[in-house]
């Protein structure tokens, strides 16, 4: 029972994988497919890790999807303007950090609820993205070397997976093993107390928002690299899924707090379910039904384990 309570959602993930592997040993259960899932979940997980940082301080960043779209469009246009890969990467990430800083500033300085601040600011970013792209999908001028940042394998692991591993390790250490991370959790747990002991609440919150936007931009760049094109609303699908991953993760470990390992479990559940259901050839509408039901079950498993408390 304690096991169920502490690791319920993780057990649910294991169970889901096991069920699919039995149902489809030849396709789902292969090492190649499991490795591929890590690649498929990587962009979502990177966005979700960014969202996790902001959730840790108790806020929402709803501009992540706008930043994902922006990063792809901005990158392809910059390539069109003749810039090199390193320059494009740097420019786009810096622009995103600046955007995150603005969101963070609005929330931390003016106490605007983050939900509305980032939603509105995301709309602004969306407008900017449309302006740059003229609303069209951009294809041309992407250097192959850039595309390789989002595809192929290195040492047998897909490149996006490697990006994810890097991001996750850094974010995890940042949150769990540094003073900055402790401060973020303290701010999220009791902002008043954090203020009372003189933590730099505003500065840390702004940094969290900036990092969230930076990671969304990274995901956007990798998405453009992976697809070889950039779509002005290409990040739209990431918003709710990223938060689904974070919230699933919150039920996975610790006392219902957002955490990097939790978010990874959450993103993995989402990725495994859609991969597995597609491989099993489940029709679309049933996929939705089952995805929703499986996520609910994954959360409930843990809550049932807690019922004894």
């Amino acid at each position, binding site marked *: 029972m304690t096991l169920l309570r502490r690791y319920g959602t993780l057990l649910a993930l294991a169970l889901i994988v096991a069920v699919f592997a039995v149902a489809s040993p030849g396709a789902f259960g292969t090492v190649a497919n499991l490795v591929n899932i890590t690649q498929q979940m990587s962009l979502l997980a990177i966005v979700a890790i960014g969202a996790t940082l902001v959730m840790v301080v108790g806020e929402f960043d709803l501009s992540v999807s706008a930043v994902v779209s922006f990063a792809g469009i901005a990158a392809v246009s910059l390539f069109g303007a003749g810039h090199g890969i390193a320059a494009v990467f740097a420019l786009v990430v810096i622009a995103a950090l600046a955007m995150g800083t603005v969101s963070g500033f609005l929330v931390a300085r003016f106490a605007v609820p983050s939900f509305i601040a980032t939603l509105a600011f995301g709309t602004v970013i969306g407008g900017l993205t449309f302006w740059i792209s003229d609303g069209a999908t951009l294809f041309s001028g992407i250097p192959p070397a850039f595309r390789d940042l989002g595809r192929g394998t290195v040492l047998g692991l897909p490149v996006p997976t490697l990006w994810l591993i890097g991001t996750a390790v850094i974010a995890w250490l940042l949150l769990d093993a540094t003073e900055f991370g402790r401060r973020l959790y303290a701010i999220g747990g009791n902002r008043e107390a954090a203020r009372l*002991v003189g933590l730099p609440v505003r500065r840390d919150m702004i940094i969290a928002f900036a990092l969230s936007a930076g990671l969304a931009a990274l995901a956007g760049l990798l998405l453009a690299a992976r697809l070889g094109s950039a779509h002005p609303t290409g990040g739209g699908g990431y918003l709710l899924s990223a938060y689904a991953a974070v919230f699933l993760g919150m039920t996975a470990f610790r006392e219902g707090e957002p955490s990097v390992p939790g978010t990874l479990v959450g993103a993995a559940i989402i990725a495994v379910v859609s991969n597995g259901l597609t491989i099993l050839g489940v029709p679309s509408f049933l996929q939705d039904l089952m995805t929703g039901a499986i996520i609910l079950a994954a959360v409930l498993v843990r809550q049932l384990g807690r019922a004894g408390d």
Partner: protein
Amino acid sequence: MTNAGEGRQPFLVLAGVSRHFGATRALDGADLEIAPGEVHALVGENGAGKSTLIKLLSGLHQPGGGAILVDGAAASIAGPLAAEALGFRFIHQELNLVPQFDTVGNAWIGRRHPHRGPFIDRAAMRARVAAVAARIAPDLPLDRPAARLTPGQRQMAEIVRALMTDARLVVMDEPTSSLSEAEAEAERLHAVVRQLSVSGTAVLFISHRLDEVMALADGYTVLRGGRTVGAGRVKDIDRAGLVRLMSGGPASAETLPKAARLAPSGDIALSANIAFGPAGSHAVIEIGAGEIVGLYGLVGAGRSALLKALWGALPVVGTIRLAGRPLAGGPAGRIAQGAVYVPEDRRREGFAGALSIADNLALAHLSDFRRIPRLPLPARGQIHAFARDVGTRLRLVAASLDSSPLTLSGGNQQKLLFGRWLGRPIRLALIDEPTRGVDVGAKAEIHGEIRRIAASGAAVIAATSDIEELMALADRVLVMNGGRIVADLAGAVLTREAVVAAAFGHAPRSHPPQPNRAAAVA
């Protein structure tokens, strides 16, 4: 008394400071002087402005007028960091821990953590905290999240936090209000205060327990209505003198003697035989109509858990009967049967900040305030009339009954929890820390109300950490330890010494609890 600070020059002087919140003059020309190594008591009625004054020192509020002088020079304390830099440490009245952090984590927030390489060193963090905790609170669980500590344990965690580093001044806003006065807890804190004083650290101490003030402090300052109305050496004043200064009138009878009340009738009103809460907790209780039973124990003894269990807010196994009828249906069912409950943690369990003071008072029986009895539409007028009545009976100091309870001072918040049950028939009262943080005057009022409730034939259980209160109020005392009732003291054997001894687990058990034969004992 340490006599430290005697004759030394004050290093901290507040001269005529003021601070207004809208129309409320929380501080209106307050003076305060503290010398190095002095233990200084700040006393005053609820809402006198004590906590506000502390907040000026900690940089949370800026003074609206007057001056703060440190070492003779005007200081502006811009924020918590500035206060920390001056060497001031604070234990605020409303506890401020991060709920998901354990004691170790909480102790280190805002401090430079020990590092190993680029990462924080958890072992070193724990070792430092354990060293401090060993002095003050050896029983405090260091690895349990604050959210799952009892209020008393949380208060200790705050104290541990404040004493982690050396300081010039440690400010404690009612640090003992949920600590039991038995040697282990409040006493241990007192010892620490004396140690600090000897080592030259000044301590500014706020408390409504005047005996504690008399025993511990060197100097005192009395606030009334935001103004300093008296200051001096404690050895030059007595308890009655302090009360006179605080209330601005004669020292009225603080508490009525027990004899002023009718003896309990002897009918059994409440009988319970339950297992509840943390594993191993078990209680057999019988309480007569009109009887006031005190519940005593050390921090974490299980008093609150027992009361919650009786209130139906915790899962229980066993039977609870009120006047022979089983109590069921959770809190709502108990209210319907005439039971009431006062929680101990006012912030977390007490009131809803989104509602006004008046609405909070009416919340437990909204259906009593209907314009038309059959329509669930609350009548604002009736709610306000009720709130005004409660306010006068308990001396509530509030700018307006329409404001949020969060703008009230700590003691006044406490009055709301009690006040919401006044003025209706009560058959069972479960009261957890009835007067935590309440000033002496209002304490007398609340005690009076409790007696009135008992006199009307109700069974009353009051858990308190204030042994003065326990002795003054209770006809009979149950002492808990480790989730069980370890002593049942009444009449001649009900002495302070017996109660304290029982709380520590080496008590002569007058009625050893025997769950299986509980019915026969009756």
